[in-house]
């Protein structure tokens, strides 16, 4: 519980500093990493992700946290008289992990890009 509380709070903090809803929605926004979340293939130790890894991370996180627009959903009336809307998994939870100071991993299930970026230490890069 204690670690959970810590994670919850620090996550929200990063959110306030790093990625707002506007940044999250803007595909042109570039991000930079502030946390060591990538595992170095040579040393096996955590390090900050490089540019290509950040782009991959941002792309995957955007795709996994995409939310369906109801009006655009394919809705069909079934034999039972109901309406079925395709979500295509877009309401899914995304599990993330980052290392703690002691080297253990802290995990978090998120539903939005903003929270995921905050948890993983991605911030909008104002230098590019």
């Amino acid at each position: 519980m204690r670690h959970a509380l810590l994670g919850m709070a620090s996550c929200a903090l990063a959110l306030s500093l790093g990625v707002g809803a506007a940044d999250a929605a803007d595909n042109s926004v570039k991000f930079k990493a502030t946390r060591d979340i990538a595992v170095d293939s040579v040393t096996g130790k955590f390090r900050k992700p490089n540019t290509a890894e950040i782009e991959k991370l941002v792309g995957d996180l955007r795709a996994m946290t995409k939310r369906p627009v109801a009006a655009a959903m394919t809705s069909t009336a079934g034999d039972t008289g109901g309406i079925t809307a395709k979500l295509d998994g877009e309401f899914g939870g995304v599990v993330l992990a980052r290392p703690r100071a002691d080297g253990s991993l802290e995990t978090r299930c998120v539903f939005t890009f903003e929270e995921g970026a905050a948890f993983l230490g991605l911030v909008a890069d104002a230098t590019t």
Partner: protein
Amino acid sequence: MSKEYSTKLGALALSLMLGVMAYGQATADATIVIVNLDGPGEGFNDPTPTTAVGGNTGKTLGEQRLIAFQRAADIWGETLDSNVVIRIQAAFNPLGPGILGSAGAISASRDFSGIGQHPGAEFPATWYGAALANKRAGVDLDPAGNDINAQFSSNFNFYLGLNNQHGANPDLLVVLLHEFAHGLNFQTFYDRTTGVSFGGVQFTDIYARYLFDRTFGLTWPDMKKKDVAASAINFGNLVWSGDTVTEAVPDVLDFGSPQVDVLSPPAIARTYQFGTAAFGPSVGSPNVTDPVVAAQDAANTAGPATTDGCTAFTNVPAIAGNIALIERGTCGFALKARNATNAGASAVIIYNNVANAAGAPPGMADDGINGAFVTIPAVSLTRADGLAIVGELANGVTARLIVDPNVRAGADPEGRARLYAPNPLVGGSSVSHYDSVASRNLLMEPSINPDLTHDVSAPHDLTHELFLDIGWFPDSDLDGVANDLDSQANSDFTPRIAFGGIDTGVPSQLLDGGSTMSDLIADVAAAAQNDRQFVDAVTRLAEGWRKEGRITQAQKDAIVSAAAGSKTQ
């Protein structure tokens, strides 16, 4: 009753019973299948040789992944009942760093009726995730599609064993249980920032129907959208109203809820959302109730403000024996708390600075140096809450940092499970998880804690109970009638009515209330004292079915004839 007759009827009853047992063994629970979407040589098909780990006997990495997936599916399949196969399409892909995986429902349905005895949707204009909707409809509402989508990282080193001995690595099985649960409808489809449900304000979802806000005294479907948005960040006051979860809370959650309260002055007296520290004693060790005093220190290079607590306090006499109030920033949390300890404070509250004005109460990390010297409880507050206290200091502020022994950790004072509703909104993590203050730790908290087991029901967990509340009703014979309403919870679904070895050729139908024709015949066989009573009772049953139009005269005659014939065998 003669011994011979008793034996004969007993054999008949046994043959009917065996039919029931065979059916139960074959189809009870839910069948969840993993649909492998990986191509050759990747993901589930990765041929890298591996050795068995923790009961996972797969000989390749791909096999072990699939075994772990299927085990998670089986745990939910053994827990839930559905006559419709649940299909989870799954793949392992090289995801970005830090991403372990994802899962969610592929479709949602509303306003559907049920086939046969299945109840359909319990409420109108209410979305159900695919698997739950299918269960209640008794038929696959989207037969061309799968029900849950799952994608996990092939880059990540999960523990693939099945025995929960995962050490420092995340246990894939637990992660899958958590994510599959979201796909099984442990989630709302609301946009928590706007308070609008998927599809528009005229709709809600089955999960949201049980979200009760203690401040508004309402559940989400009865609230205005702006109030729903406020409820999503109403820390400590968003609770689950379902009876099954509430009844199980005493078996799962421990007494002793940590809390931070301001007791006076009345203008700011309430319970506050707080963050905890990774150093020093926990809140409640010991309980502290004392005046709050703002710490003052020199404005210097170590900390430019007199409120940052980065150097030795200059108002030690005022601080001693009281709760020190410090502003965040410049130096680490642990150093501030160490300085408060040195000043004789009974506890320390650190509130967010301007740079973190919109942030939630932070979790306070140790710096590896100062934390060891902190001997008092430390908590963090939002900037708004901190400034509210600052604004009343002149009037005298008394606060307490306690563990309330009468409230269960993760429940409200009325014993209802709390949902995760941090303020400010922490993305979509909120609401669709239990509160992270729960103790014991729960599967569906936002963090997947290392001490979780693979048991999803009380007294180990509350996930199954929430599923029961939202409509995953127990249905042992999968006839669509909930066990507690079913006149025969383990019906005989033998296709045709038979008496011992005599097949009547008459289809055995499922009747209102959850019994089949074969069930009722078995009942009269058990109650009959002799052959005549048995045949007479079967005749009355068959005549009743004929009058109801369920069977023809010829079918009735076949049933009666077979009943009479069976007594002479």
